[in-house]
């Protein structure tokens, strides 16, 4: 497993599994399977579909932004104040599938999800990354 360096306010994680993308897709999209490794949910992989994840510590609401069976899945993840975007990418490998998860708090190319934030984010984050590096 590795955690590629991401931009500020993003979390990225990758792991290769010795299984075909189809099996992983089921685990990512079927509620009874999601419940076993992520949270209780009424998730359905249909674009525009709202869903919620719930656990003992609270809940997360989301909406499906993109779903390409066995290849990629993207949804919002958040509450009233902050919506981040979680994107799953499945890439077939010789021995199975490389699964990548990326969660971004403020995404450069999808600013409309963040409280009307407009142009200027990319430059800000370039600067912010330097600032965060100093205090991290």
């Amino acid at each position: 497993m590795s955690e590629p360096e991401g931009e500020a306010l993003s979390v990225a994680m990758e792991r290769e599994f010795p299984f075909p993308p189809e099996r992983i897709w089921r685990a990512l999209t079927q509620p009874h399977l999601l419940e076993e490794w992520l949270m209780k949910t009424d998730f359905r992989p249909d674009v525009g579909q709202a869903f919620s994840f719930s656990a003992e510590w609270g809940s997360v609401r989301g909406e499906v932004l993109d779903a390409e069976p066995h290849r990629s899945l993207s949804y919002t993840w958040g509450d009233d104040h902050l919506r981040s975007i979680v994107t799953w990418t499945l890439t077939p490998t010789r021995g199975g599938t490389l699964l990548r998860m990326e969660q971004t708090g403020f995404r450069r190319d999808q600013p409309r999800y963040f409280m009307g934030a407009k142009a200027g984010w990319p430059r800000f984050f370039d600067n912010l990354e330097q600032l965060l590096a100093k205090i991290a």
Partner: protein
Amino acid sequence: MTPASRSVSQDAIFRTLADPTRRGLFERLCRDGEQTVGALTEGAGISQPAVSKHLAILKQAGLVHDRHEGRQTHYRADPGALRPLVDWTREMTEFWRGRFDALEELLNRMDQ
């Protein structure tokens, strides 16, 4: 830590910096050091009262500090206030690492 435990200060920082004008003011203070409201107004493209209002919001979020000297108010940035954003990344990384482990376990016992 879990995603739901995100602190109030994180929310405040995200909300405060979501405004491009405030982001610009904060950046200038980070880059150029302490400045008066007057100096910040120059080149901000908005009135001094508007700048003051934005600075007050930045101050409330702990992103800037002010200092009074005579009739002037000086502002400086506190980059350390961004630490909650670093914490957010750390918390989510920890959360997802645990989920990946659970997913792996599930995949191993799933029917074909």
